């Protein structure tokens, strides 16, 4: 399936292309409950920044603050050169004046308006150029036949595209996306994600997206900011976040990992899965080593020099990869490890395999001294 | 800026005319605004006669609850010139509420005997009515029931019908019992009547007569004019049958006389058309109006010399209790509390 082509007019005007979003030292509380504390977010023009974190970490609040749907309590928000909200008693620009596009998780399409009417909702009556653009884009996105239909007759994916188009139609200076794909069927998600990525990268607009799905963040984002308990715990490119997580929390965002408690002995970290380089940790220091399931390299038959011997407790093929549970002991009583091997790798239950970990895939977190 | 002022004033005039504010838009005309506890269709013949004689138009608004509060709240601006009520309690409440003004009129004083009006001229009785017993012709022998006190006689157990003890007419009757027997005596009496009731107090006066006709009970306590109205009701001839089943009996003829109440009228303190209002009262106490009251409503005219209707006359002469109406009115709250205390409205056997 080819991704839909967006006519050039989809791009906002060159003037707004230069606008970025700056949220400086923002804090927010609902009653006694602080949901955001001291967070700064910068989204440059043409950049897509992803706020990643579990539900309740404050990421959606940040989005609503940027849109002006919540009054800013502490901090400052600027779009381009304009301060749109000042938490130090300054003015709060109402959302309709900010020229931001916001796409909601539930799409929030107006049920009483047709697809076309929804898209041009934010356009002036006489804005013929954008109205024409809306018509054209609908057609190129394969929704031309639905222009006069009501939203509830559309599929989830179609509704998502309408919502995105509606947000983009007034050529916003900043685009905000709140869990844009979570309302969609899993098997359609990948395709729609790709389509959306295409649309956004062509538009060159500063985009702030909120999600709890790390894979989604990896796919879409130029930069990911991981949030936990209302704070940013790490910010970086997708590769940095995945390969160099600063905390166990960040590392575990991408799925369950194998945890190993280690101690530095004779200049090396000693663990159940073998000895690893100490990476400058002092002798006797304790550390936690995380090994992602895909970083465990298995081979069969098990030989002593092929790695640590493990017993297969279960092996399930997922088609593209195989998921295995392994035990250090002879049966499933010993410490268990998860592994994921590409392709079909289906050793018999109870058989022995050898496991080896590439040192560059180890995630080492020193335990702070008690 | 005199212009602005005039403009504003004109606007207010226009507004008050549009929305029907009556006070000064109509003050200049010869008319009188009447708050009435009586249904307009009942008093229409009287008012029509008044307008015909004097050329003064009467605007009526009919209400039962809240009239006093309405007049009080409006203060000097109240559009009401006069009030027409059906029981002494309302007249007294209006007087106590301070919304009435004293009227000095030779005609009124001549037409209305002193015990039917307020000594200071704050209110005037226009008709009087007796609270009588309607007894079954078949089941109650003449002379068997002669007084209110007889109603507690155990021989009448399960044979008496009466409307709610909280009804204004009953409250006044109980107040008169307090006046004559003291609160304790009245309580005992009310207890006794309650014990003799045939059913839970309910319905209106006519419904009690109907119950006698139906055999539910043998004695009904009602106002006298209902008997007349039932007897002459051509629209609902079945009421004639009810009346035919009962005999009207005046009570306490051997001693103090039958308990009486009045319907009356008063002029409000804020009356803008005081002159017309007094004229109306004078007219209502005059021969022509008193005759209409007697003939159409079967009430007793207050003006001496105006004959009772033929029908009323057929019930014979009677002796009226001359207990001061003011005294009855003052005892109303006590009477009402007594009804609660005795649990009168819960009916017999409770």
């Amino acid at each position, binding site marked *: 399936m080819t991704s839909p082509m967006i006519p050039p007019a989809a791009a906002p005007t060159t003037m707004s292309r230069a606008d970025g979003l700056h949220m400086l030292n923002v*804090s927010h*509380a609902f*009653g006694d409950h602080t949901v955001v504390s*001291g967070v700064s977010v910068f989204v440059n023009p043409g950049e897509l920044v992803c706020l990643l974190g579990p539900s309740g970490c404050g990421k959606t609040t940040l989005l609503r603050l940027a849109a*002006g*749907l919540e009054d800013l*309590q502490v901090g400052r928000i600027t779009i381009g050169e304009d301060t749109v909200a000042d938490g130090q008693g300054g003015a709060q620009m*109402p959302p*309709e004046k900010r020229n*931001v596009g916001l796409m*909601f998780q539930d799409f*929030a399409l*107006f*049920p*009483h308006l047709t697809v076309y009417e929804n898209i041009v*909702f*934010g356009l002036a009556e006489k804005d013929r150029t954008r109205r024409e653009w809306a018509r054209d884009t609908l057609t190129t996105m394969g929704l031309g036949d639905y222009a006069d239909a009501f939203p*509830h007759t559309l599929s989830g994916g179609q509704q998502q595209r309408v919502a995105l188009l*509606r947000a983009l139609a007034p050529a916003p200076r900043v685009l905000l996306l709140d869990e844009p794909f979570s309302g969609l069927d899993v098997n359609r998600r990948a395709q729609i994600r790709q389509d959306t990525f295409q649309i956004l990268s062509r538009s060159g607009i500063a985009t702030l997206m909120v999600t709890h799905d790390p894979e989604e963040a990896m796919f879409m984002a130029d930069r990911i900011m991981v949030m936990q308990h209302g704070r940013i715990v790490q910010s970086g490119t997708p590769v940095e976040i995945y390969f160099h997580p600063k905390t166990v929390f960040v590392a575990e965002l991408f799925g369950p990992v194998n945890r190993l408690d280690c101690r530095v002995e004779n200049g090396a970290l000693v663990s159940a899965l073998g000895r690893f380089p100490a990476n400058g940790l002092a002798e006797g220091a304790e550390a936690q080593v995380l090994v992602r399931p895909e970083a465990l390299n298995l081979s069969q038959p098990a030989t002593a020099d092929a790695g640590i011997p493990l017993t297969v407790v279960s092996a399930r093929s997922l088609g593209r990869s195989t998921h295995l549970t392994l035990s250090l002991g002879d049966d499933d009583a010993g410490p268990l490890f998860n592994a994921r091997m590409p392709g079909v790798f289906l050793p018999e239950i109870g058989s022995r395999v050898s496991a080896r970990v590439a040192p560059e895939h180890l995630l080492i977190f020193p335990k702070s001294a008690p | 800026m005199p212009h602005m*002022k005039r403009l*504003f*004033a004109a606007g*207010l*005039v226009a*507004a008050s005319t549009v*929305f*029907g*504010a*009556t006070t*000064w838009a109509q003050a200049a005309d010869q008319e009188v605004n009447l708050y009435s506890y009586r*249904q*307009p*269709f009942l008093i229409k013949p009287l008012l029509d006669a008044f307008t015909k004689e004097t050329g003064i138009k009467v605007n009526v*608004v*009919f*209400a*039962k*609850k*809240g*009239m006093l509060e309405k007049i009080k709240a409006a203060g*000097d*601006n*109240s*559009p009401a010139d006069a009030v027409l009520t059906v029981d002494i309690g309302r007249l007294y409440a209006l007087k106590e509420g301070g919304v009435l003004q004293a009227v000095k009129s030779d005609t009124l004083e001549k037409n209305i005997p002193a015990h039917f009006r307020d000594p200071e001229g704050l209110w005037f009785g226009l008709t009087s009515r007796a609270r009588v017993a309607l007894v079954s012709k078949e089941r109650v022998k003449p002379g068997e029931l002669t007084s209110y006190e007889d109603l507690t006689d155990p021989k009448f157990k399960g044979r008496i019908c009466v409307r709610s003890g909280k009804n*204004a007419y009953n409250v006044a009757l109980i107040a008169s019992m307090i006046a004559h027997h003291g609160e304790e005596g009245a309580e005992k009496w009310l207890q006794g009547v309650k014990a003799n009731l045939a059913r*839970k*107090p309910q*319905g209106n006066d*006519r419904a009690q007569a109907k*119950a006698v006709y139906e*055999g*539910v009970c043998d004695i009904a306590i009602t106002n006298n004019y209902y008997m007349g109205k039932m007897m002459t009701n051509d629209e609902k001839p079945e009421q004639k049958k009810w009346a035919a089943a009962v005999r009207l009996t005046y009570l306490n003829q051997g001693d103090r006389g039958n308990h009486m109440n009045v319907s009356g009228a008063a002029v409000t303190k804020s009356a803008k058309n005081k002159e017309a209002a007094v004229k109306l009262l004078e007219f209502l106490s005059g021969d022509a109006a008193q005759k209409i009251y007697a003939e159409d409503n079967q009430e007793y005219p207050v003006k001496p010399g105006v004959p009772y209707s033929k029908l009323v006359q057929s019930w014979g002469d009677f002796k009226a209790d001359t207990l001061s109406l003011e005294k009855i009115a003052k005892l*109303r*709250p006590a*009477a009402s509390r007594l009804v*609660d*205390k005795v*649990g009168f*409205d*819960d009916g017999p056997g409770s």
Partner: protein
Amino acid sequence: MPHPAAVADRPATRYQLARLIPDRWGIITLAVALFVATPLIAVATIAMTPAPDIWRHLYNTVLFGYVERTVMLIGGIGLGTFIIGTGTAWLVTMCRFPGRGLFNWALVLPLAVPTYILAFVFTDQLEYAGAVQGTLREIFGWRNRQDYWFPEIRSMGGAITVMTLVLYPYVYLLARAAFLEQSVCVLEVSRTLGKSAWQSFWNVALPLARPAIVVGMTLAMMEALNDFGTVDFFGVKTFTAGIYDVWLNMDNISGAAQLASVLMIFVVVLVVLERMARRGQRYHHTSSKIQALPSYRLRGIKAMLAAVFCALPILFGFVLPASVLVSYAVVFFDVTLQANYLTITLNSISLSLGAAVIAVAIGLLLAYGLRMGSGPLPRAAVRFASIGYAVPGAVLAIGVIVPMAGLDNSIDAFSERVFGVSTGLLFSGTVIAILYGYLARFLALSFGTIEAGLGKVSRNMDGAARTLGANPFQTMSRVHFPLLRTSLLTAGLLVFVDCMKELPITIILRPFGYDTLATFVFQYASDELFEESALGALTIVAAGLIPVVILALTTLRSRPGHAGGGHP
């Protein structure tokens, strides 16, 4: 760099402060709510003026009786409206049986019948001299009351029956709308989990519809609380009867206002308790799939029972009173026609229409204000303003007249001093007073309906509209208003029908020479000449019929996804 704790604290305190001081919307909401609640505040103020103590007397004598009977009355009516309203709503939405199409809208008809008219008709037919007992006597040869037993119509049971028959349509309308909105999936899940259709109704559909049903029952019970005419007619001494007794027989308006205030507190407590019981249970529709409703086809005896169950309330709540009225109207046609029949009909209709428009506008403003503004103060004020529905009408009327006449007199004095012109009673002497009284009384109807409708419009839609450049008023006109059309229409029609029937406020607040159908009927009814005003009563019913049928048909069309029902 401030200490983290300091950062966390500052917004919290700021927010708490902001919570107590309402924002712009909050202030507007608060002001409007207080405007509507002024009569209630006036009643509470009257209650505080010194007066002879009535509580000791009431406590020693009738208070417990009042409370007991009031609880029985509203309990009975709550149960009755629940059974009839929910039962019929379930049958017509979920089952198929003969006559379903007709019942679907005809079940709303009793709403158009004033309670006092139904009370009169019932008594007329069922009392000793009535047609029913008369016929029975003829058939069985009984001679008098001692020969047989027949239930006493003038009783608690009679009052509950009559009021239930008139009030159940509130529950029916709301329950039906709730059932229509429910996803069929959850019911099907229940069936696959081994529950019978009946169990599914009881365990799934009913709890899901609970908020709507409770709203309907609350309306019915509040209406029962404020009623005096009907209970008085049936000889049932309720709390409201006590209020009038203290006021009129004991000449103690302050004591009466104290009783009325207690009644208000009672209602507030009930409403708060219900809300607390419901807290945490938020019934979101978990599935948005729209499918045709399943319609269990009922056959044989079941179909017949369903038809009878639906037919009875219509028969007794509408057909019977309407036909009795028609028969009287034919006989006494000329009596009614003499009395400016057309003028008073016009008065009734224009007054009710005006009140409906005002109540909807204010209800919309308040519902919208609460949605936009934060803060417990405006919220509490709006809740308070809507308990006017439970206050006895005559008491509320006094609450209207006292502050309004006070205002009039101030304006008059000012105008007299500055312009030398007396303005008289600008408001309290005019129909404006009646309209204000209607607003204070029926706000609960319009506000409740609109708030429920607005609740179904997702907040994200507000956000979407705002970020697309619409200001709050544009959001209201372009998004909320069209989505709320059905709710607004429903609110307006409910208020209209109730105003057509309204009596105590109208009779106290109307100016000279101003009659409505209800006051006209009352004049005759209060002298036991009800039959002569039958044409007037019939007109009230007929005028209520049109909106009631529109109401039934509109809610019938509304299905989820259409979010309120009316697209082009």
